[in-house]
């Protein structure tokens, strides 16, 4: 990182360029079921990131030979819109997008009960409308919600968040400048109920101690985001039951 231009990312009061504390998340807004044509969808605003996720399926596998006999195939496409970045991005899928599609799919796959839908496919589309660092994590957060919105049985929701190092200090949820001028970036996808990590990547360098600290920070943030995901789902879906229906449930229980 020697050729990086030196910028002060943390001021004397310990605040970052956008005024956040070291362990503070950017503001997050989540919305479920925003698209009508998809079976499930979600929209996330994570700081200045704006990302749409859509899910189709489980549906017939096409082409047929990709189908698996014992479970559904999960396919994922992560894509950045040409207008999502400062410089126009070519709409053709880049090497980076291909890799992110793969790691996002692998971070979500363990949460999907795909064994209920053998020989079918579940298609997942993540479209980045505006990028501001941490799109893979925000994409995972939105995609998991879209899967739930599609009515696909999930073991639990997956939340994503990054931590990193700037000006030699471990911080949470890097923004665009911090990502570009900082020392390290550590994106994490996490499932709180099973306490498992679905994605862990690192760019830059950190000491073992810093890595542990950053990971703890990211996991804690994922727990916060997980609660936000649950709230977003509750806002769209709730069941009003009257007395007789409650009795019926009691009967089933008995």
């Amino acid at each position, binding site marked *: 990182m020697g050729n990086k231009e030196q910028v002060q990312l943390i001021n004397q009061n310990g605040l970052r360029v956008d005024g956040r504390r070291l362990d503070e998340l950017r503001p997050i807004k989540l919305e479920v079921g925003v698209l009508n044509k998809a*079976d*499930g969808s979600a929209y996330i605003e994570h700081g200045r990131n704006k990302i749409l996720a859509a899910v189709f*399926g*489980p*549906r*017939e596998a096409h082409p047929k030979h990709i189908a698996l*006999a*014992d479970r*559904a195939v999960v396919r994922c496409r992560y894509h950045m819109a040409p207008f999502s970045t400062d410089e126009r991005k070519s709409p053709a899928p880049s090497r980076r997008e291909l890799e992110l599609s793969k790691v996002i799919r692998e971070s979500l796959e363990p949460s999907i009960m795909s064994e*209920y*839908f*053998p*020989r*079918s*496919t579940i298609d997942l589309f993540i479209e980045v409308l505006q990028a501001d660092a941490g799109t893979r994590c925000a994409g995972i957060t939105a995609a998991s919600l879209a899967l739930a*919105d*599609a*009515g*696909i*049985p999930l073991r639990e929701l997956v939340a994503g968040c990054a931590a990193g190092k700037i000006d030699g200090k471990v911080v949470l949820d890097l923004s665009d400048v911090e990502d570009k001028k900082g020392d390290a970036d550590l994106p994490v996808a996490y499932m709180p109920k099973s306490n498992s990590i679905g994605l862990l990547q690192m760019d830059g360098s950190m000491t073992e101690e810093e890595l542990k600290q950053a990971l703890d920070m990211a996991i804690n943030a994922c727990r916060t985001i997980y609660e936000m995901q649950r709230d977003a789902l509750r806002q769209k*879906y*709730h*069941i*009003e*039951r*009257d007395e*007789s*229906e409650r009795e019926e*449930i009691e009967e*089933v*229980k008995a």
Partner: protein
Amino acid sequence: MADVVGNKVIVMPVKGAYIPRIDDIVLGRVTDIGMSGWQVDIYAPYPAMLPASETPMHGRDSVRRDLRSIYGGGDLMIAQVIEFDRTRDPLLTTKGRGLGKVTSGRVARINNTKIPRIIGKKGSMITMLKKETGTDIIPGQNGVILVTGRNPDQELIAVEAIYMIEREAHTTGLTERVKAMILERMKGITVGQ
């Protein structure tokens, strides 16, 4: 939405793909015609097959000549699932009362998880729908519902009511509100008996 009973969790799905079950009545559309049967889209992740031997006309000369004379491409049919498991695609039959080609009526498509709500407790909702709109309603377990009435206005009101039930499936006192809506709409039309 979820209830815990001992070591089991009962989850009420609000959405989801239609997974065929044996004996289900479904509405499907012919997508392909082969030598010995039809491929039928039943709006499930799996394509269904209707073998020629499972039509009431099986054995007659015309069948051997051309399957198209029974069900053509794009034809809508009421069928029953006779076979399905994790390893095989669903198999249909149109032998039986009430099964076969659909020649008239209007179709409403909703999510299959809402079908029990359309039928209601002991059929209360569907009985009310049929009575108040004066139509016949056949709910396919795959979420496709056929409405046939004496005139298009009645059918339209029934379809509107079905979509209203899907939209408000999670609320209580729904039967009464749907009934009020139907009565209001029925005022505007004259039903020729």
